[in-house]
Each structure stands twice: as C-alpha cells, then as structure tokens.
C-alpha cells in the first residue's frame, strides 16, 4: 500500500469526521439525558414485569400527567401535600368519596381535550388483575371510578384511610380513551399506539432509534406552561463507564445516578461544566436473615430464628464505616427498611452502633462460644457458619459482604460469601435457599407498601426471609390508617423492627446526579428525577 494512499485515507477520514462533528453541534435548548436501560414501553398500565423499569417511567413522566403529583415534602398522608396537574382541584364528599375536577385546558397531544372518560377508562384497565396484578393489588381499595360529566371524576373507596389520595393519583397516569377504548384490552402492547404514544404531558413523542436514543419534543401548547427546553433526548449507554465518558466528553448533559465507587463522583465533580445534584433515593439495601431452614422450609432456621443471635449479628458490624467506605457522605445507615425518600426516614431515630462486646455476650448467652479453641464459635459441636448471597452485578454489595466476612471472622463467625449471577441469585432468593441474602429494594414514595416485603401476609411472596411479627404488622397498619398519630406509630414500628432484626439494614443512599450548568433547574424528584424538566430554564451564556 503506497504511503500516499494511507495518508489520503487518514486525511479523508479526519475531514469527514470533523464534518460530522460540526453537523451535530449546537442546540443549547436540548438536553441529552443518559439512561442505562432502553425505554421499551413507556405507557401507563403497560409498564409491567420487565417493562416496569426506570427508563420507561422516566419517559412516561414526560408524556403523561398524573391527576396530581406528590409535593416536594413527599409526606403523602391525607389529601394535602400534592400539587395539581391534570386535576385543577379536588374535594372530599365524605370519608369514602373523592372528587377530582379536571383542568379544562388539558389537551392530548392530538388536540383532543382530556376528559373524565379518559380517567375512568385508564383506571378500569389498571384495576384489571389480568393486565397488571401488582398495580391492581395497589389499587384494591378503590371500589369505583366514575365520570360525572366531562370534567369531574368520582373515586369511591372501600374504607376510610389516609392513603386514598395517593392511591388515586400516584400509580396511574390517564390514557387517551378516544384512541384506545376500541382496542381489545390485551392488545394495547402490540398496537400502533405504543410505537408513538400520544400523551398529555409537557413533551410529545419525537422519534426512537432502537438501541440508541429516544427523542421527545416540547409540547408548546402545554397548558401548565410551554417548556423552555425544546428537546429531551434519552441516550442509551448500558455500562456505567460509558455513561460517565459520554457525560465528561460533553456528548450528554445529565445523568441521574452516578453509581459508586466514589471516584466516579469525584471525576464528574471535577468537571466545571457539570453540577452535582444529590437527591434522596428510593433505595434501601439490607441483608435479610432467613427465618426458615434453607434445606427444609417447614422447619425454623436453626441459627437465625433466634432474635438474640440476629441482634448479635447486627451489633457485630460497623455499618457506618462500611457505608462510608462505599458511599462517602452520600449514604447513611437506615433505621428499618426505609429509603431516604420516605418521610418516615426523618423521624429522628438512630441506628444501633457497632458493639462487639455486647454481640459476643449475646452469642455466648445462647451457647455460642469457642469450645474447641479453633477460633470459630460453636454450639453442640456445630460451628457458627453462615453464607451470604449477593448478585455479582453489584459492586457495593460485594464490597460490603467482604467487609462483613472480615468483621464476623474477628468475632469467631464464619461467613461464606457467594457472588451469584443475578438470575441465579434471584431464583435462590425467591425459593428461600439462603442463610443471609444481600438485597436492595426500590420503594414507592409512600411507606404504604412496607408490609409487601415485611408483613406476615407476604410470606411466600416478597417477604423472602419469612419474617412475621403481628405487632409490627398492626403498628404499620395503624400508622397507615391514623393520620394524626402516624409519626408516633411509625416510630414504634421502626423501633420494633430494629429490635427484632429481621435484617441488617445497611445503606440508604442519596443519589448523585450530574447536570450541565447551562440549565437553571428545579430540584430533582426522587421517584422520577427528570419529571419537572419542563420547568427548567436556560442560563444565558453558559455551556454548549
């Protein structure tokens, strides 16, 4: 190959590449948001099973409005603390009846007005357990949703409870009945509608390049105010390193959650073009104790069914140091299974600190001492040996599991650490085949789902450790039913669960987002960080 040929190829490649770079430049009024998952079905009532992911929820939040959104405090008991969206106002007829008055200015992206029929149609779908049993279960206390004229929707509940408003507004965003009512109920997911959904939100569907990005265009007729950002683009990058590279290279403007190690946050923070935005997460990480024998679930666990042993296993760990090593200042040790987003995380409770002397004494009180001098506690000839499962995809859990192993070793407890492929880990977890399981849960903004994972009734479902404490159940039930005494009841419930130690509650992180400084932004919403992007403005002169 002559040298000039090689030179010409390199030169031509460079020139063409520069042409492409220039062609794709500019447009300050667009925002490119990085996402780790591809939005596949961002349509309410279809975000089920595999489609129930963050990417779909983020896109749906731009396309569709709720009747009302949770307010910034996220104290979601009673009818206060919500901000109007599709519903301009609401009134309570009695303790079982709630009436929403739709905003007459609300329009679907095809220009048709949003009506009470749309709301009724959507709730009819959402409450159908053959479509989405999980949401149908969440809406089980709604007895009826009916239209009263074009603008009023009447919700009737089966009993009085403070979470009625939340149930009526949070889980479901209305769909356009005029486009979908004639479709067979189970065919919506395969319909043409889902390829370019028509919503009523601040952004309308632009285009999707499969495997690459999804573009939403501003709805300039949005009745709550036209967005200043003209385009919202969700750019897909599966790996965290690719997302950070795209952010630092200026190819993207925002990333919702910079995952540890901490050096990632430091790298992004060092870029003066970007601002770091911490916000409370929905996540809580914990190590579940199995109350049943993994080999025979009809029998209690020979070691872990004893609450004194469980307490000792909690006290043996320096959780604060472990959390700090993984998250720095961006996480704390929770009290109970409570993510930082929940209002009950701000009740002034503190987790127990490490106390190895007490842990050792508690174990000794149950007969666990080192009888044979091999450095491992034993009882009746059996060593205190346990195993912990975690998904190999989680570096945070790996780091913490190894620290647990070492801290337990010093106390004479053997802990075998098992990194498992996520589907294998999930299968063993669901079948109760574990001693300790390192889990992480993404919670709703309301604590009303607490018993889904920790209640006696959910053993065999999401309560994988088979923990059952009727007192805890009744305290939670009472807290959810009694608005006035809720803080005190929650305090008692959380103290109870801490004392009973069904799990080691490890971390409740604050997510750290990064956003280009050219955006004058509003606070990020914990359950849907980009939801308020339509209210963002552009700073003069800064950035692209």
């Amino acid at each position, binding site marked *: 190959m002559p040298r000039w040929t090689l030179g010409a190829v390199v030169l031509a*490649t460079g020139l063409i590449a520069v042409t492409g770079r220039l062609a794709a430049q500019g447009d300050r009024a667009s925002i490119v948001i990085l996402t780790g998952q591809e939005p596949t079905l961002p349509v309410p009532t279809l975000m089920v099973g595999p489609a129930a992911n963050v990417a779909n929820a983020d896109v749906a939040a731009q396309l569709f409005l709720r009747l009302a959104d949770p307010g910034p405090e996220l104290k979601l008991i009673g009818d206060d603390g919500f901000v109007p969206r599709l519903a301009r106002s609401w009134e309570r007829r009695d303790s079982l009846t709630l009436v929403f008055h739709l905003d007459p200015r609300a329009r679907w992206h095809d220009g048709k007005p949003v009506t009470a029929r749309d709301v009724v149609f959507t709730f009819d779908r959402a409450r159908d357990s053959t479509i989405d049993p999980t949401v149908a279960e969440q809406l089980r206390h709604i007895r009826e949703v009916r239209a009263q004229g074009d603008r009023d929707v009447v919700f009737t509940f089966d009993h009085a409870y403070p979470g009625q408003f939340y149930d009526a507004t949070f889980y479901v965003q209305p769909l356009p009945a005029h486009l979908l009512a004639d479709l067979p109920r189970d065919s919506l997911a395969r319909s043409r509608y889902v390829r370019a959904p028509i919503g009523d939100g601040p952004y309308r569907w632009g285009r999707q390049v499969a495997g690459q990005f999804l573009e939403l265009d501003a709805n300039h007729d949005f009745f709550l105010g036209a967005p200043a950002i003209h385009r919202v683009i969700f750019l897909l990058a599966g790996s965290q390193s690719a997302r950070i590279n795209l952010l630092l290279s200026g190819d993207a403007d925002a990333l919702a959650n910079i995952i540890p190690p901490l050096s990632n946050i430091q790298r992004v923070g060092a870029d003066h073009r970007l601002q770091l935005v911490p916000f409370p997460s929905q996540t809580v990480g914990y190590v579940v104790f199995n109350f049943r024998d993994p080999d025979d679930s009809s029998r209690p666990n020979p070691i872990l069914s004893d609450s004194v042993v469980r307490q000792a296993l909690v006290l043996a760990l320096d959780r604060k140091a472990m959390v700090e090593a993984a998250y720095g200042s961006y996480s704390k040790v929770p009290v109970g299974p409570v993510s930082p987003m929940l209002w009950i995380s701000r009740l002034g409770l503190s987790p127990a600190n490490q106390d190895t002397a007490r842990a050792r004494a508690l174990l000794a009180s149950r007969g666990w001492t080192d009888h044979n001098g091999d450095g491992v506690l034993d009882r009746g000839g059996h060593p205190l040996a346990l195993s912990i499962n975690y998904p190999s995809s989680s570096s945070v859990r790996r780091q913490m599991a190894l620290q647990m192993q070492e801290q337990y070793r010093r106390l004479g407890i053997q802990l075998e650490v098992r990194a498992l492929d996520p589907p294998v880990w999930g299968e063993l977890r669901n079948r109760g085949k574990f001693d300790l399981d390192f889990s992480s849960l993404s919670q709703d903004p309301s604590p009303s789902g607490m018993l889904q994972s920790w209640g006696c009734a959910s053993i*065999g479902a999401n309560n994988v450790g088979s923990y059952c404490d009727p007192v805890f159940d009744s305290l939670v039930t009472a807290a959810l039913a009694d608005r006035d005494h809720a803080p005190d009841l929650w305090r008692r419930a959380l103290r109870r669960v801490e004392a009973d130690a069904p799990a080691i509650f490890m971390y409740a992180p604050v997510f750290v987002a990064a956003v280009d400084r050219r955006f004058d932004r509003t606070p990020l919403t914990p359950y849907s960080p980009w939801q308020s992007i339509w209210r963002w403005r552009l700073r003069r002169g800064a950035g692209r």
Partner: protein
Amino acid sequence: MGRWLARRVVQAALTLAVAATLAFVLMRVAPGDPLARLAMDQPISPQQIALLRTRYGLDQPLLKQYTAFVGGALHGDFGVSIAYGRPVTALIAERLPATLILGGTVLLINFTLGLWLGVRQAVKRGRAADHLIGVLSQTGYAVPSFWLGLVLAWLVGIRWQLLPAGGMHSPLMDPTSTLLHQAADLLEHLILPALTLSIVSIAAAIRYQRTAMLDALSLPFILTARAKGLRERQIVWRHAWRNALFPVLTLFGLWLPVLVTGSVFVEDVFAWPGLGSLAAGAVAARDYPVLMGTTTLVAVIVVLASLLIDGLYALLDPRIRWA
C-alpha cells in the same frame, strides 16, 4: 459441483440443528430463572410472575417449549424477548447493521492494512521494520480491548474532545440532514471502537500473512522470477502474495462469526448498539428467546462462512476439486 453443494447444504442444516438444540438444552439446564430478576429491586406479586411465566411459555414442559422454538425458528420467528417485550427478530434486525458496520470496518482494516503490514514484514525480514511491526502488533494483541477502549475514550473523547466518546449517531443531529452529514456523523462515532478492535486483533492477520509470505518467498518459482529480472514489486504482489493468501483465507473464515459477537466489551465501553451487547445482556438476564435468536444467527454465520471459504478454496486453487 451440484452434488458437492447439495451435500454441504445438508451438512450445514444438520450442524445448525445440532447447534440450536445444544444451545436450547444448555440454556435451560443452566441455573437461573429469567423472571426472578424482576423481583430483584421491587416488590412484585406472585400472580404477576405466574402471568408472565404463562405469557412467555415458561410454564410449559421443556419438550413443548423446544417444539415451539423449532416451529417458530423455521418461520424466522424466535418469539418475544422477555427483557424488551418485543419480537426477537425485530431486535436482531435493529442491532445487526451496527454490528456489521463495526465488524465489517474492523475486517476491512485487518485484511487491508494487516495484510499489507504482514507482507512488509516478510519482505523486510530481520530488518528494523520487521521487528518494529512485530513488536507493535504483538503489543496491541496483548492489550485487553476494554482497557484500550477506556483509554482511547478518555484521551480522544474526553481529554482532547476530538471524537465522540460513545454512541453510533449524535442524537442532536437533525434527522433531515444530508446523507453526507449523516455518514460523517457515523464515521466519527465509528473511529474509536473500530480502532480499538483493530489494534487488538490486527496482529493475527499480520502474523498469518508474514508466515505465509515467508513460505511463498522461499519457493523456487520466486527465484526463477528474480532470475528473469522481474521487478521486486511484481514478484512480491503478483507472484508471492497470491500464493500466500490461502492461510489468510482460513483466518477470514474464522473471523466472520467473531464479527457478530466478538465485540461485546468494546460495544459496552463505547455504547455501540450492536448484537454483542444484546447477546451479553440476554445471557445476564436469561432472556431465552434473545439468546436462542442470537445463537442461531451465529451458528448460521459459522456454517455459511465455512461454506464460503470451502467454495473460495476450490475456486482459487485448481488443485482442489469439488470433491
């Protein structure tokens, strides 16, 4: 030739059937529930899991699942992806172009620049150029592709901001822009991943070509050609190189399937939307339909590549008959 072709097609069909069956059985025997991960970080009702298990046919006996797979595959239907909720054929069709563009570019670089360098090495045997090319290509071969990708993305994409650090197209580009602009945009996104893959894989082409060239250059007819006073360039490219192409042809055949799945790490580092990352994600999620679709595709490519190379051998070398 007709009989040869018929026999090879039957062999190919058998190979495909065995490969697909093995893949099906191994995937189902391997531990891990594709739906278990749904409950990984959010509460999900057992009814929901049961509903999905029915929807994806996972509640059926293995034999029934297999017959359903075979029946669908014969019609080009691999079912619906569990993770994406979309037909597998559509997913593959969307990802295949990106894979072919990246893999094709790497193949093009390796089998032009790589062969040229191999020939240069052979011609300059024992001299500085031979050593330099050898050391550089072996160094590239020894470097892990994901590490090199990260370094290039950081240096060229972040530090110098000369090229995009990832993706295949700029999402900011106007979709109505000219074809030239779109091609240029694609090219600038392609440079880094293609360069990464080429650096780590070109060594094989260079080494194969060098060895084959050295063999060819030592044959008596080359001495005759020199004695006849032919120019060195003619001797090298017209006489020696043609004879040194056969081993490289074998290498080409071996690389065709790698083209589809061999770039998983690089696709990951550069957010390149190819089949490799789709297949890797499907393994992690136990997305059986996608796994079967991609595995069958790779098997088809392997079989076709083998057919193609055998045919090419017979065409290029008169000593090899259609037998």
